[in-house]
């Protein structure tokens, strides 16, 4: 059992806010994450059978597509999934070696691969399927929230965000401190009714998802104030005969 840092009031909780209203499932977050991280802190993210049957690699971020609801009323959902950086993550507490850990300073959940024994208990414990086992190296890997970008002083400040956030063309991903109620991400969550995944399990995920907005009610208005109903007009063109239009 690995212990968690003691919860501090007002502690930083870095995480992602993912907008299901605008995610079109383009996979930019998935492949940009892959290209950043395969040469990043947890490098590499290997790919098995890259050019043959059974192609399967390590991805820290995956986008799932499915349908919800029936027929025309239903919806096609694109759902990006990565580590939620829970406040009380079972993947950490279950770790027998201390390799899996949660940082007190910003809440990021990481794996120290130097002491990971590859037992995969954490993957079993995580109900969100966010762990990615590198069976080539025999160690567990996962989303680092781009810990090697967000504090990186060699990168211009506006880009010191996780790769998945800077690359998202649909503005569907936001990064910030969800422990600070005044942060932009916290306010976005408040405004849009952001929710956590499966709160009933009690792991207190930090990441939030924003639900699809309600379709705007186009106010069709009364379109027929221009004259009698078409059915009452024998030749609707006649209305235009005396209409004179100048420039």
């Amino acid at each position, binding site marked *: 059992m*690995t212990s968690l840092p003691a919860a501090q009031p007002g502690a930083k909780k870095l995480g992602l806010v993912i907008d299901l209203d*605008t995610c*079109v499932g383009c*996979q*930019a977050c*998935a*492949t940009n994450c*892959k*290209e*950043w991280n*395969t*040469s990043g*802190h947890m*490098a*590499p993210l290997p*790919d098995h059978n*890259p*050019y*043959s*049957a059974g*192609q399967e690699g390590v*991805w820290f971020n995956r986008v799932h597509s499915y*349908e919800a609801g029936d027929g025309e009323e*239903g919806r*096609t959902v*694109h759902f990006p999934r990565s580590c939620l950086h829970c406040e009380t993550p079972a993947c950490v507490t279950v*770790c027998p*070696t*201390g*390799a899996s*850990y*949660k940082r007190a300073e910003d809440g990021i959940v*990481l794996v*120290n*691969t*130097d002491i990971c024994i590859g037992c995969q208990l954490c993957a079993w414990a995580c109900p969100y399927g966010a762990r990615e086992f590198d069976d*080539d190296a025999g160690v567990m890997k996962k989303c680092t929230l781009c810990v*090697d970008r967000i504090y*990186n*002083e060699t990168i211009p400040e506006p*880009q010191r965000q996780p*790769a998945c956030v*800077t*690359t*998202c*063309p*649909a*503005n*569907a991903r936001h990064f910030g401190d969800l422990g600070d109620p005044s942060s932009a991400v916290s306010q976005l969550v408040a405004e849009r009714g952001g929710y956590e995944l499966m709160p009933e399990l009690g792991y207190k995920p930090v990441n939030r998802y924003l639900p699809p*907005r309600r379709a*705007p009610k186009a106010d069709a208005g009364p*379109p027929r104030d*221009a*004259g009698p109903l078409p059915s009452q007009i024998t030749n*609707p063109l006649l209305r*235009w*005969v005396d209409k*004179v*239009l100048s*420039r």
Partner: protein
Amino acid sequence: MPADGGSTDRIVYSAPIGDEVKTTTCYMCACRCGIRVHLKDGRVRYIEGNPDHPVNKGVLCGKGSAGIMTQYSPARLQAPLKRVGPRGSGEYAEISWEEAMETATGWLKHVRETDPKKLAFFTGRDQSQSLTGFWAAQFGTPNFAAHGGFCSVNMAAGGLYTIGGSFWEFGEPDWEHAKYLMIFGVAEDHDSNPIKTGLAALKQRGSKIVSVNPVRTGYSAIADEWVGIRPGTDGLFVMSLIRELILTDRVDGEFLVRYTNAPWLVVRNPGGADDGLFARDADGKPLAWDRARGAIPADDVTLSAVLVGDFTLEDGRRVQPVFNLMAERYLSADYAPEAVAERCGMTAERIRRLAAEIADIAFNHPLTLDIPWTDVWGRKHDKMVGRPVAFHAMRGISAHSNGFHTCRALHILQMLLGAVDTPGSWRYKSPFPRPIPPGPGPAGKGAKPNTPLTGNILSFTHGPDDLLVEDDGTPLRIDHSFSWEAPLGLHGMMHTVIGNAEKGDPYKIDTLFMFMANMAWNSAMNPMETIRCLTAQDANGDYVIPHVIYSDAYFSETVPYADLILPDTTYLERWDAISILDRPIGSSHGPGDAIRQPVIKPDRDVRPFQEVLIELGARLGLPAFVKEGGSPKFKDYPDYIVNHQRMPGVGPLAGWRGEDGTKKGVGEPNKDQLQRYIDNGCFWRHNLAPEESYFKHANATYLANAKAMGMMGNSNQIVLQIWSEPLQKFRLAAEGHGAKQPPAHLRERVRTYCDPLPFWYAPLEQQQHDTDPFPLSAVTQRPMAMYHSWGSMNAWLRQIHGSNKLYMSRERAIAEGLAQDDWVWVESRSGRVKAQLSLMEGVNRDTVWTWNAIGKRAGAWMLTPDAAEAQRGFLLNHVISEWLPAQTGPRMANADPITGQAAWYDLRVKVSKCAPGEEGVTDPFPTMLDPPPDMPATPDILRYNEGGQKP
């Protein structure tokens, strides 16, 4: 007690990303985003969007972000190859570039000296058409095009002949201001990142997005309303919307009178040679009917136009305004919601509601920007008032044989709403608008040995005189483009080239030269028939198409069918010009263009295709590519980009012209031009001033500045064309007028389809065979992670889409006794293909669909034959015919009768369960392709890592 992993973890927080970063332009699709490529020890560490770039503003899609795997794919060709076994055998020998160039020069020189049209040069998904098209004209062959004929020519032609711009390439929604957006047939599109960013902006503002599409994928997934229309009926739906707007008087009359030809007078003289042409004055100016003065020139600023009536001119000719004829057409009961609803797959109430919604936004919620501007009549306006309803349309309209008219109908809908280049509506991307139609007719007449053609090969026909036909109507081009079969075939018809060349229709060719076009697989309608044509032999055992030269960077399915292979570089290894002369990166905010620069050195014996082409031009002595005396004029492609002048002062790039780099658009070559581009992130952009941002077709400031920058020849108003006179000219010829008339077998076809007003007709293929046995429409979509990204050779992208299924409405499948994951036969009039079924809710009940181009031929792209792409991936192409059902008379392309656009989506099929034992592997399953010599081994595990901190 476990260790404290955190205290011993080795995290390097501020490692530099790489040791060098270079900007260039992405080529993972056609969007042309700016990228920053981080390099580490000469290898690519990371590719990110360039935050300063006007196209993508820092974001980068799923394809662009996977560029590393395209760069380092084992499927990259290694060296020039010559075929040593039969075509298709895959028996090759590596040769030197000198031998390759000598071989190509030998074949091409002979063709040019004898009969240059016997070279068919087709360049696929080419972004350098200003060079390749120019080269073809210099060679002297009319047989040149890229892939537009099977991609989007219906949208290009429909737009350019109607509003002087078009969806996607030459226009875009006003993402900043639109309050309502309706998109047609767009799951994903070429303008990949701007659309995604724009949709998100619209949703954040609470604007409504309606997606009209048989399938609820891609952008339809986030639309506020999905209209699951039946394929090929969009035109009917649009014309029904038009009818509703006219009936309910929701029409912007002022816009029509100011900016369109709605008031122009059309001669009514049935049977006469001038019937349907515009009545013009002695100076050739179109006339309109003024309430007080009768017929006066339509451009008179004091015109007080009457739009409905039947008038007689002083010379006795009977005339009616365009508006009158248009309104009569669409008020027909044929377009009533009740009449079209069932066919379109929606209710009449829904059509009425959508018409009312659009009208409500346009007329009750206009958008006003406090920007003064001056119109073409010199009048100053203190603000810009717009109709904030925007439209966008693409493949789902384009890939039908009624797509040209459907596209035109959509543009007429925009005009009726007053929603063309106004705040909140669809807008032109600079350098558009252009005159309607732009430019002179296509070059291609009078091809003779050793002689360049004058003008552009892909240009614009204005009437029968511009067609490329013999006196008897026989096409001059191998693909029949610009003939009576496709009078507006602006982008050529690549889909017919190989079939026609094999048949010798209208003549045999000597050399087929292709670049980046997978015609032996997913780029062909009916790949197995295309392969048959490529390998067909005559009685002597000689190939019917004697020489095939192919340039590609990768081992695609087409490579084994070429005699000579010129291996290209990847997009990160070469120079390119995204040229102002072709399809630049302009937007509604202003014109722009871009370059690619090599960011890494090739590690193979390959050369950039454009450079090879320039050298071939010099070896062949093409006048524009040699100096006096015959030595090469350009030492390489960058030299050409900087120093080639199409006209004095006009070259491939518009930025930093003039000796000191201070000129825009027109100016002498600047030797430092490419460095200036590189210093600016590899793009040039000129931002329009606010007063020239909208109403560009009638904005005096914009038009004058556009002329000054060389973007158009004059600064006259561009009057939007509801009634299309060029089409009427073709129709008149079919009715027996004029010196050039269609041959008998095409007369009725030309008369019917060259209608000056859009109309709806059932897709040609469906008219011409019994569709009862084939109850389902079948279409494809390209997934976002693969759109135009060319390949499953990308180890990351193939993990996202490794095989494809056939998607069918759940309700329909259950009714037909089919279940999830059943293996089924998909059968059309021309063939059958085997696929695995998947059921879904978000698909029109009468439609099945699949992802396009995921299926690969076994062995190609350096995938092992057991790969999912070969085993379970399938191409719907196998059941699409490139020809219409057999008729009496010559065979006709399965294409739009105006533009020649390949009608991929007119397909009808039936779906039935496979017999037991047939499951598991797709069919047709052509023989496995062997790789060329010396291709690299493919790893079992890929551990890509350039500079990772904990290797």
